[in-house]
């Protein structure tokens, strides 16, 4: 047994015997033999069990939907939030929705669509929590990014104190998360447990429900709604692509601009690897250079026509070329529903090789670190040549956020994690790319094995500051060494020297 009988019993008294387990088969289901799993049903239970973890000095980790769960290799309590799964409020006039951690975005968005509204969604997609955590995704151009979408939040600290931020602490309302005074939104992603959160919602000019036809995995739409359009454009140079992307952002015409490289499009519209690779080959021949996918939606009469006209003008000025395959009805339909409901992430990432590992810059616009990305792509293509990773087009992808004020870029390798050479090559690649981000002053790297001191010392020693803040909220150091970060796999604890260091990534 991982934790003492006494501790187990005390936790059981809070959540009931059916909501705690250290049964080996349950552990297997959670992919770790080190854990005891606890399923709290409400905020008070979360706070009570976290207090017990402090009393017994047992480290804990929390999971909302588990898309970024990497179990540690020490005895710990695993707090699975799946019983807290309610949409608490959708306030249409004031443009926010309040959710518990196990509400998935697909559920929330389905409810919002009925009301002509939508929400931001991380690229991992519809199956992940609707909490505004992490959360850089396909619709960032018009729906912002993760933490910039959160409003009032209920948060249980690593010591088990319930803190209600903003209006929820003052009057039980959910419309503002800042104050009184400084905003604690600044620290809620460093650890603890978010138990409820209000997130901004946005206007949706698309249908209240997609009228899908067909069977899994080949769904389609009988017709593309008259006020919606999807296109993929390639450009002669990356400079032209950036120019087009900025102009689209500045003219506020697009609902979505996803800097997909052709392999991301082909993986989205195909249903197996053979089809994917054949399609990619066709696309690669047709495109003239780097590209992006764009979705426009008209919100009222005349709006669609205006946006389409401006889009065409921008594409003409920047010498963009439409990828004909995407003008095909089925491809356009698939991209439309898949990239607005964000259901293609497994196709994009895991399907080709079983695993993907990513290097990314979150928040910063594409044009600011394009040299770094191009170098990462050169190094990636060397791995492709050696047959160590999936032979895709080797390119980065990225998108503008908040109409091009911010942005996100990413480049990943898809590979077979059971192949030791591939595993090693990809992780070496990540470290090399991270190092270049640092030495070239492009961005603070995430997701690599570079020691945090090396990164922090180049970034105002933020790891030391963060460590102090972590300790101020987690004096017993039982709290999650993890926490929300801009990269799910990267953890708040790992940004500090306070906790035992994260072991190097292990090959499965």
């Amino acid at each position, binding site marked *: 047994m991982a934790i003492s009988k006494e501790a187990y019993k005390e936790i059981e008294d809070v959540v009931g015997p059916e909501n705690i387990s250290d049964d080996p088969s349950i552990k297997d289901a959670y992919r770790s033999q080190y854990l005891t799993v606890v399923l709290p049903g409400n905020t008070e239970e979360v706070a009570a069990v976290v207090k017990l973890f402090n009393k017994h000095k047992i480290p804990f980790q929390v999971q909302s939907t588990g898309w970024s769960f990497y179990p540690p290799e020490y005895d710990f309590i695993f707090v699975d939030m799946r019983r807290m799964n309610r949409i608490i409020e959708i306030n249409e006039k004031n443009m926010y929705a309040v959710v518990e951690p196990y509400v998935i975005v697909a559920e929330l968005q389905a409810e919002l669509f009925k009301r002509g509204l939508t929400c931001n969604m991380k690229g991992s997609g519809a199956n992940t929590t609707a909490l505004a955590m992490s959360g850089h995704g396909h619709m960032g151009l018009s729906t912002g990014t993760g933490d910039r979408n959160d409003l009032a939040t209920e948060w249980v600290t690593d010591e088990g104190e319930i803190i209600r931020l903003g209006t929820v602490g003052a009057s039980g309302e959910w419309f503002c*998360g800042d104050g009184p005074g400084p905003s604690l939104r600044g620290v809620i992603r460093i650890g603890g447990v978010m138990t409820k959160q209000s997130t*901004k919602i946005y206007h949706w000019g698309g249908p209240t429900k997609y009228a899908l036809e067909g069977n899994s995995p080949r769904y389609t739409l009988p017709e593309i709604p008259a006020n919606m359009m999807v296109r993929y454009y390639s450009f002669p140079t990356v400079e032209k692509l950036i120019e087009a992307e900025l102009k689209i952002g500045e003219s506020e015409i697009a609902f979505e601009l996803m800097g997909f490289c052709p392999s991301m499009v082909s993986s989205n519209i195909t249903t197996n690897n053979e089809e994917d690779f054949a399609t990619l080959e066709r696309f690669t021949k047709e495109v003239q250079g780097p590209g992006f996918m764009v979705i426009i939606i008209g919100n009222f009469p005349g709006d669609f026509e205006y946006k389409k006209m401006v889009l065409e003008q921008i594409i003409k000025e920047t010498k963009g070329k439409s990828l004909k395959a995407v003008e095909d009805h089925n491809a356009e339909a698939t991209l439309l529903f898949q990239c607005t409901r964000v259901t293609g992430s497994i196709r994009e990432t895991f399907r080709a090789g079983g695993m993907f590992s990513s290097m990314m810059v979150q928040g910063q616009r594409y044009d600011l670190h394009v040299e770094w990305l191009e170098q990462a792509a050169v190094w990636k293509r060397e791995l492709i040549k050696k047959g160590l990773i999936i032979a895709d087009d080797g390119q980065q992808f990225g998108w503008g956020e908040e109409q091009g004020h911010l942005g996100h870029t990413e480049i990943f390798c898809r590979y077979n994690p059971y192949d030791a050479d591939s595993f090693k090559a990809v992780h070496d690649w990540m470290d090399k790319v991270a190092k270049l*981000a640092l030495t070239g002053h492009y961005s*603070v790297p995430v997701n690599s094995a570079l020691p945090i001191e090396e990164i922090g010392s180049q970034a*105002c020693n933020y790891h030391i500051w963060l460590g102090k803040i972590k300790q101020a909220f987690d004096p017993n150091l039982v709290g999650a060494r993890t926490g929300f970060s801009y990269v799910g796999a990267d953890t708040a604890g790992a940004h500090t020297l306070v906790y035992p260091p994260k072991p190097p990534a292990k090959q499965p």
Partner: protein
Amino acid sequence: MVVEAKFAKIVGAGNASSQKETLEEYSRDMSFVNPVRPAFIVRPKTAAEIEKIVNLANETNTPLVPVSSGSPHFRGDTVPGTGGVVIVDLSGMKKIIKITRHNRVAMVEPGVTFAELIPAVTREGLRLNMPLLPRQSKSVVGSMLEREPVIMPKYQWDSSDPLACIEVVFGNGETFRTGQAAGPGTIEEQWAAGGVQKTPYGPGPAQWQRLVQGAQGTMGIVTWASLRCELLPELEQPFVVGSANLGKLTDLAHWLVRMKLVNECFMVNNTDLAAIMAEKWPTDYCDLKDSLPRWILFYNVAGYHYSPEERVSTQIKGITDICKQVGVEPVKAAGKVSANEILKTVQKPSGEPYWKLRYKGACQDIFFITIYDKLERQLSIMNELANQYGFQSSDIGIYLQPMVQGTNCHCEFNLFYDPTNPREVARVKTLYTKATEALMKVGAFFSRPYDTTARMIVNQNAASVDALNRVKGVLDPNHIMNPGKLCF
């Protein structure tokens, strides 16, 4: 060397003062906060001097109060909360460090005012998302640190906007840069690599700038800030919609902001609009006010580089349909005030004297964040209390600013009063406190509490006070920064 001389040595004798009249100026403002005379004034010119000042303050246990804007001050936050304070007056730090059209960002020192920054960004084809008619002396950095509401809600994605990154000397004397500015490397190295200081979050999972905003100088001293700018439109078509029925106007405001159809968008009552637009006092003011409907919604439709006429006319058509559904009619003038004049007025800081002082010489604001559903009740409570405490309710200016892309609304009551009339002062003072208490009970959220009411408001949420003090303990462990404010 006595402590004051050490501070003077850092900034140079010409930038330090202990003259009685100067100290007197900083000892009070237009709020109801009790005057406390500071011990000394320093006017640093560089971040390095600021770092030395904070370090010296830690060594000598001297409280510091940072001030960026020029007078008149209104909120009591720069009035010392304790004795022996050294005022760090940053209003002389006036460098506009960088403006980049391509990245839609500007970077400025704390002494730069709206009046100074507006022409500079305009030359680059950019504009600021700014508060409604800030006073001439208002610091841009100060306004953003206070999370003041801005008049283009469509471009306010987050309550921290338009602030991007800051450089801050925390209370413990160490300098930190937030967001994208943190690194890698120095700002100059980032520029050399083609970078800008714009992404507000990180590094790591903390959102450092949020801990400094709303802190009233209690966490550290900001030495520069960057801010996102918007493009200058090529075509603008402003409108007003008047109504006695505020519900209809908030309905319309909801749709305008939700569908991102308009740039500037706010509502005022007739008292405020007359106070803003009147040129000759008191004749103009009374005339204008009489000519205006009870409530006025102002909005501005804009076109940018691509086919601006077409965009504006399409959006106006879209808005016309919404207006029909709501049952209101947009026009080009309300009473004697034209939409074009309002637009011109609100795209600049206030003329002199500051618009809130023109009517009676002083103004006490009561402001909070709310949602439309609660407004009616909050307005009627304010009216009742005004009547109860002898303040003419029709004399209350009201400003409603949709915020954060329509997720909430700033509600502000402007109580204009004559500061030389002791009875009027006493009435306003009582009304201010009583109304704050009463409004809190009906869902008014005082996210930025100042002066005499701050402690009462902050202390209502004990868990949040505890958390804020933990943060404070890390950033300003010796409680050097502006002691006595908020819950510190």
